[in-house]
């Protein structure tokens, strides 16, 4: 009716709309990319923080040695003397992505360094992620909501915090992979096309390559499938969307070395297999229902159910027995701490010691998703009007991710896309209603360009009033009539137009509401830009402070790493707390004892024990590990709060977890952690204290610690087994060298050393039995 009568303007309008949304998307991509460049502009083009340095180092290796060497890479520069099989323990998605990107650029003779490519990988992928959000939301709720959600995601602070230029971390590409996998799932669900199902499996494969968070996908999608089945929404499309994903996805996932057999062995994946069985049973039931008469069907149901229950029971029993036989019930420590938020703090101090594994505080929600937190409920409501397969998925996604973000700060990242999608839907629906009412109120029906049915014009004016009241009645009435209304909206374009016209608000109200919404959006934008520029752009290896005489740069970390790199022997071993392991291997190119990949708790506990032991015992531990230099981070002179003294209690705890002679109460005075004159003698004599405060008192005469805001307890002391070889400009990093044993006492030390090592080894092995972490 509309098409044959006015083909010209209509297609033109469509074309214009397409071009417009294409450009909007392009701009959103540019926005997503450029808002993340604050770190480069304010600081420099450099890799940030800790984990990105490891990824950068792996990428360097990949680009230098090729992909086969990368798979077989045994890294002997870390976890000395154990080493680490990098190829088999790393999620290779990010590295391969950046490596491929670099290779393509080099093939085109565009001379970019590996570092540059790594720095800009995250912003590029956040642009991709916002486009994927558009696609996903478009599938859920239409193009308008898609554009809004994409714009929101492009600048959501939570995602910015993980994907600023230089933050070269798995999450940067994983969020894109996550959203894209969800999009392909929904697309398959909406179209029932096997093509998209295959793509979906490939996208899932990419996600598995990129991040351990893929378990979220492989649990969320089965949940949604189950939800659909339970609510009677089973269809062949659902089957096509799910079954290939499980089969292909699991096969592909087990190709990734770090996952391997975990893809079928660990409990994280069991839900998907269970639902896989269920969906086949349901499909069979639907099939039988189709070919049997209702009576025959009833008979069949009773028969099958009785047999099936027995079989299921047997299978379940076997499964449970299998799972229960493993000590962690088949769940990895991180997954368990997700299911039971108190698990980590009870059993695994190493997980609990990481600040991003703590539960978030309320302000962090406001900081990270800002006004989206208020828009999400509206979005959820909009998803229920009408509820489709896709929108039910969106609702499920937001609900689960809210839970997970409540357990760990770091999973706020998973919540952010969901919040953006929901808020996008909410905003778009709201704008839709308000602009429609304004248009209607201003132009009336006759002038309305949107009206394309000439013969309905006459009726509209007449119908408006009674129908409107009817409509509101309808909304309140039974669910059935609601459904009817929905189907009108969905199926009958003409009728829906008319009925949409009926949801008209007063002109002033809608104007004010639009104004307020725009204000809200503006507030969001301002907050996001502030967060991107101020809060999340610091690379953390360079610190700056603004004082009255201008900007002051604290570049101590790189000073120390550069010193190590150039002025120590290439095979020297450097011991430090594990936080600095990745940076030391990447920036200083020296062998470390422990690093941020905390795979061996005992090893970390050994270093923790050494740091919390008195000098001589520490020297013996370090010497047995072949350590030549010890690196400590000390913020007391300039007031840098995240230094080793503040982390020290974790060292004691982790060390004490394996070596029981280290007892946390020994370091606490009446349950309080202090380093002043009230501190316990154990504390004042431990290696960490001594290395941090060695000759510190001579700086100001009284040894005032600017982080702890107190005078230190033990001021004048000498080191007998260590010597200071380097201290950075602001004293933030201090490097000590182990003195070689003196001739006279050699026999003595040797004896005690052998004794201590043997005891520590026996202790270690004993502890391994007790606490096989990971």
């Amino acid at each position: 009716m509309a098409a044959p009568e006015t083909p010209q303007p209509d297609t033109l309008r469509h074309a214009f709309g397409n071009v417009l949304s294409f450009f909007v998307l392009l701009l959103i991509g540019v926005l997503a990319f450029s808002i993340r460049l604050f770190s480069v502009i304010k600081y420099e083009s450099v890799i940030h923080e800790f984990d990105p340095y490891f990824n950068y180092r792996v990428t360097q290796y990949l680009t230098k040695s090729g992909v086969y060497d990368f798979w077989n890479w045994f890294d002997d520069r870390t976890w000395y003397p154990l080493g680490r099989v990098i190829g088999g323990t790393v999620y290779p998605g990010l590295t391969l992505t950046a490596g491929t990107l670099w290779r393509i650029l080099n093939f085109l003779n565009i001379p970019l360094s590996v570092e540059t490519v790594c720095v800009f990988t995250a912003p590029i992928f956040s642009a991709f992620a916002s486009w994927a959000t558009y696609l996903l939301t478009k599938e859920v709720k239409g193009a308008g909501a898609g554009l809004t959600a994409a714009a929101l995601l492009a600048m959501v602070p939570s995602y910015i915090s993980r994907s600023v230029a230089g933050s070269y971390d798995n999450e940067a590409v994983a969020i894109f992979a996550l959203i894209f996998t969800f999009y392909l799932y929904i697309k398959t669900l909406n179209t029932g096309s096997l093509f998209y199902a295959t793509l979906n499996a490939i996208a899932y494969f990419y996600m598995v390559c990129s991040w351990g968070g893929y378990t979220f996908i492989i649990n969320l999608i089965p949940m949604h499938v189950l939800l659909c089945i339970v609510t009677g929404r089973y269809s062949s499309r659902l089957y096509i969307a799910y079954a290939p994903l499980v089969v292909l996805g699991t096969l592909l996932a087990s190709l990734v070395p770090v996952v391997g057999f975990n893809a079928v062995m660990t409990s994280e994946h069991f839900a998907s297999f269970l639902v896989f069985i269920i969906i086949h049973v349901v499909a069979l039931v639907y099939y039988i229902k189709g070919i049997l008469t209702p009576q025959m069907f009833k008979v069949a149901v009773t028969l099958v159910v009785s047999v099936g229950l027995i079989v299921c029971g047997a299978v379940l029993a076997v499964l449970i027995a299998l799972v229960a036989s493993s000590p962690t019930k088949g769940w990895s420590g991180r997954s368990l701490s997700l299911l039971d938020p108190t698990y980590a703090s009870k059993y695994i101090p190493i997980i609990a010691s990481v600040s991003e594994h703590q539960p978030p505080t309320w302000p962090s929600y406001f900081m990270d998703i800002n006004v989206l937190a208020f828009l999400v409920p509206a979005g959820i409501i909009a998803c229920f009007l009408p509820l489709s397969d896709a929108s039910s998925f969106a609702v499920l996604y937001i609900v689960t991710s809210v839970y997970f973000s409540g357990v760990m700060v770091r999973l706020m990242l998973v919540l952010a896309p969901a919040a953006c999608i929901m808020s996008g839907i909410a905003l778009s629906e709201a704008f839709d209603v308000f602009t429609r009412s304004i248009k209607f109120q201003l132009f009336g029906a006759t002038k309305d360009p949107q009206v394309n049915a000439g013969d309905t014009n006459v009726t509209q004016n007449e119908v408006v009033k009674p129908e409107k009241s009817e409509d509101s009645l309808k909304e309140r009435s039974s669910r059935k009539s609601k459904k009817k209304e929905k189907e009108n909206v969905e199926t009958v374009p003409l009728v829906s137009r008319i009925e949409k016209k009926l949801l008209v608000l007063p002109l002033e109200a809608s104007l004010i509401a639009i104004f307020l919404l725009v204000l809200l959006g503006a507030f969001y934008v301002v907050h996001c830009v502030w967060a991107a520029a101020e809060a999340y752009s610091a690379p953390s290896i360079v610190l700056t402070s603004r004082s009255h005489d201008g900007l002051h740069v604290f570049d101590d970390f790189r000073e120390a790493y550069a010193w190590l790199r150039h002025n120590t022997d290439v095979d020297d071993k450097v011991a430090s707390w594990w936080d600095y392991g990745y940076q030391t291997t990447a920036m200083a190119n020296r062998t470390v004892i422990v690093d941020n990949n905390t795979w061996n708790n005992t090893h970390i506990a050994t270093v923790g024990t050494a740091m919390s032991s008195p000098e001589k015992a520490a020297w013996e531990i370090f010497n047995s590990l072949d350590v030549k230099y010890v690196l400590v981070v000390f913020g007391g002179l300039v007031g840098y709060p995240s230094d080793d003294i503040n982390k020290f209690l974790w060292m004691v705890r982790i060390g004490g977890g394996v070596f029981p002679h280290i007892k946390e109460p020994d370091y606490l005075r009446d349950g309080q952690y202090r380093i002043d004159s009230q501190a316990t003698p154990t504390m004042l004599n431990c290696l960490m204290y001594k290395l941090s405060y060695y000759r510190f008192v001579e700086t100001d005469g009284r040894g005032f610690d600017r982080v702890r805001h107190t005078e230190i307890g033990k001021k004048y002391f000498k080191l007998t087994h260590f010597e200071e070889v380097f201290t950075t400009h602001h004293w933030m990093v201090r490097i000590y060298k182990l003195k070689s044993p003196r001739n006279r006492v050699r026999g003595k030390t040797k004896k005690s050393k052998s004794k201590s090592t043997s005891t520590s080894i026996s202790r270690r092995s004993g502890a391994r039995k007790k606490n096989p972490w990971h």
Partner: protein
Amino acid sequence: MKRIRFDLSLLFVFGFCMSFSTVCSDLVISKLDRRIDLTSQLVRTTVSLKVENNGVDSVSEILLPFPEHQARNLAFLSAMISEGKDKTKSSSGSLPIEATNPKGKPPSLTWYSVSLPKELSKGGSLTLEVKAVFTHVLRPFPEKISQADVQLVAFQDSAHYLSPYTVKVQSLTIKLPEPRVESYTKLENTKFSGTEIKYGPYENLPPFSYTPIVVHYVGNKPFAVAQELVREIEISHWGNVQITENYNLVHAGAEITGEFSRLDYQARPHVRGASAFRNLVAKLPPRAHSIYYRDEIGNISTSNVWSDSAKTLLEIEPRYPMFGGWRTSFTIGYGLPLKDFVFQSEGKRFLNISFGCPMSDVVIENLIVKIVLPEGSKEISVSVPFPVKQSQETKFSHLDMVGRPVIVLEKKNVVPEHNQYIQVYYRFCNLSLLWEPLMLIFGFFLFFVACIVYMHADFTISKSSPSYVAKLQWDEVQTAIQQFQNIMNRCLVVHDKLEASLRELSRNGNVQACKAARKAADSLLKELSKELKPILSFLQSSPQAVQIMPKVEELVSKERELQEKLMLKHSTVVDSYEKKSGGRDIENRVAAVQQKITLLRQEVDEILEVIDEI
């Protein structure tokens, strides 16, 4: 002190040998003045010789011998005729010098010969100014010091000038950086005053006289040595000369041993860390821009730039203070305007740029200068004022197809005296500049064309395959069903209108208007059913529509029924209005029909929904 002694004994032996060799030369050096400058890590000697020819033949070259330990470290040697004394006032340009191996001379010496511009005839004389710069001649002693110690340096040479000619009068002055001396060899006529040690004058010494001396003095001047420096000079004819310099720096002075205490260093940097250096100053050409200073782990923030019209001064500070034996590496880079350095002559272009490093107190052990010319440069030639190792390679960058020619110049032991201009001549066509932009434009053009082709072409492999045909048919069926749905919807709209007219009737009792509405609806419905017919027949004939057909037919029949019932209701209501029956009465009469209508309406809606889902 052991090591020095050892060297000295060697020298004695060596000097002893010298006296054996017979030298026949008619040249006599009538006056010789030697100054040795030890204020930096380099040893700069300036010798002014007054040469007289007492023989018969005229002489065209003068021999300069150097003992081996000096020759090894000889970085720079130049000789020129000083003006004034000679009647033939030659220009002060430096004279050509080449290494020779003259017969009958001891081979343990390294010989250089200076060619005179004009032969020295019998009885003639001239004054020659010879400048030599040595690296690595100064040895820190002791070799390891602690942070608090001062750096002591030993220097050894001969008090007498080593020459194959008889020297009539000679003197030696050694200039020290500080007036503090640990020890020095005392000979006759030795004077130490201020920062200078004077030996001589000595008279009438035979050829190859050699008297070793050692000066052990306080030399806290930094020993900044670049073990390797790679300078890459890249010319872009878009208007920029980009220079990138990769330094591999070491403090070659006395190594630090024991603790390094930052506290001591910060409290008294000039006492505890006297031999360390904090910063280096690079003197860059004027109008240098985009200056950066970084190393492999990122930007180094401790640098400063001052610029005026004559120069740009870049002060760089390594990440940590450089103590003896400590190493570092870094990169500085800057851009220069093209017009200051590339000129044109006789159809050729040439780059005119200084060879060495812009830092005046850095010695370079191995300097590699790479000059990257733009892609498509031809007929390349280089002119360098001193001997260097030359080679050529190709570099690919920025969308190059054939690569850029790179001139590689290598030289060992480079000192600031080597900061001379070199020229690289080449031919380059300006049109080659447009090559890369055009390539980009063409690439994008091809991409868009490919997109257009893809959008418009049909890439189905087989047009007759059953699946393709089925797909086409299915498309047709879908459009038919859409049309069908459309018509159904319009029918429903007409129904609504009828209902509306009834409501209107109940409000104002206008029977005529209601009848007119009914008539219009009738005709509309008839039209619609006419439209419906071809679609239905098509759907019946199509094999793809078999599944949907029952639903479609059901819908059509239901709609018919609904239509009839509506008409019935309409006519009943109108009738009763004409008969002026009461409202209650009408409702009673219509009630049964109304129920049926709502039921049917629901059914129709449901079927529509089902069809839509298909």
